[in-house]
């Protein structure tokens, strides 16, 4: 005689273990990726309306609410970066012969690239403005 019992999956499954919660936060970072992308479109659009419009826009963004919001966004973006880099060696393992290049090396390499890109970005911004 069989009567298999099916256990329902609770809607709050992602609160059951810190790993799942972290996963949800990682996925949530997508909201801020979208946000920052759209924000940038707005920024350029304002710039297109001239220096004055742009100044007004930036003036609004100076408000503490906006700054706080962007800081939170930045934190999520960093979480995205951190998790994305950490998974790269899994998605695209690099091999030298039979040996796998250690994950740490690949992760470190990405952070170095990030650093270089960031410096270039800031230098370009500062130099031209």
């Amino acid at each position, binding site marked *: 005689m069989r009567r298999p019992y099916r256990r329902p999956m609770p809607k709050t499954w992602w609160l059951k273990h810190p790993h799942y919660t972290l996963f949800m936060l990682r996925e949530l970072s997508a909201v801020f990726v979208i946000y920052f992308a759209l924000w940038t479109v707005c920024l350029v659009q304002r710039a297109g309306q001239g220096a004055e419009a742009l100044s007004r826009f930036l003036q609004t963004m100076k408000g503490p609410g906006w700054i706080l919001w962007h800081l939170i966004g930045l934190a999520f973006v960093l979480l995205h970066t951190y998790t994305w880099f950490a*998974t790269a060696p899994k998605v695209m393992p690099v091999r030298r012969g039979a040996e796998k290049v250690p994950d740490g090396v690949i992760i470190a390499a990405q952070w170095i690239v990030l650093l270089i890109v960031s410096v270039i970005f800031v230098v370009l911004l500062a130099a031209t403005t």
Partner: protein
Amino acid sequence: MADETIILRVLRYRPEQDSEPTFQEYEVPYRKDWVVLDALNWIKEYKDGTLSFRWSCRMGVCGSCGMMVNGRARLTCNTFLREFYPNPITVEPLVNFDIERDLVICMDPFIEKLKRVKPWIIREDVKPVEDGPYEQSPAELYRYKQFSMCINCMLCYAACPVVGLHPEFIGPAALALGIRYLLDSRDQGWDERMEEVASHDGVWGCTFVGECSEVCPKHVDPAAAIQQGKVMATLDWFKRLLMPRGQR
């Protein structure tokens, strides 16, 4: 030391008498070198012969003793009591599977999924045995070796929320196995196997929660296998898109 004990809270479900699972507590002698499985066996042998669970090798290689120990999917034959002592230990059957009885889950869906990825060497030209083994360099071996270490313990299925949310998902272990064969230099079954691996229920079901690899006792890293499978499937898709049928 001989008198020390530890409490095991064990989920019981007997289809002939219970309408739903309930917890039962057992007080078990505590030994530093006992694993959870030893405690369960002690219960079965001396206290309550009606408790059912699966096990065989007791050395972490047959894959039959997977259960939820304090909410985590573990092999009970290498999960030591000392990790929890003196706190009670909760033992439940693996989640995301139906309970057959007590700690025994129904494996049918898993076996079906294993078959789906065609986990065997597919060849157009079969080499006669007399001509000896295929050559495979250590480097070629290591491309898939890690993904061939799976003991089918299904801990990853219990850990993966997608398996619970979306029962058709082929799941981490079976996909890792499919990818193991895709990566094997001796295999020529790429197209056939890709039909399943690159399907909606295949690698594309995975949202990269990554917990499958966290719980895997054999470091198979099915999450990595699946992500590599996504890359393989994507390259393959573009190739099919760009190349006319005849040239593939």
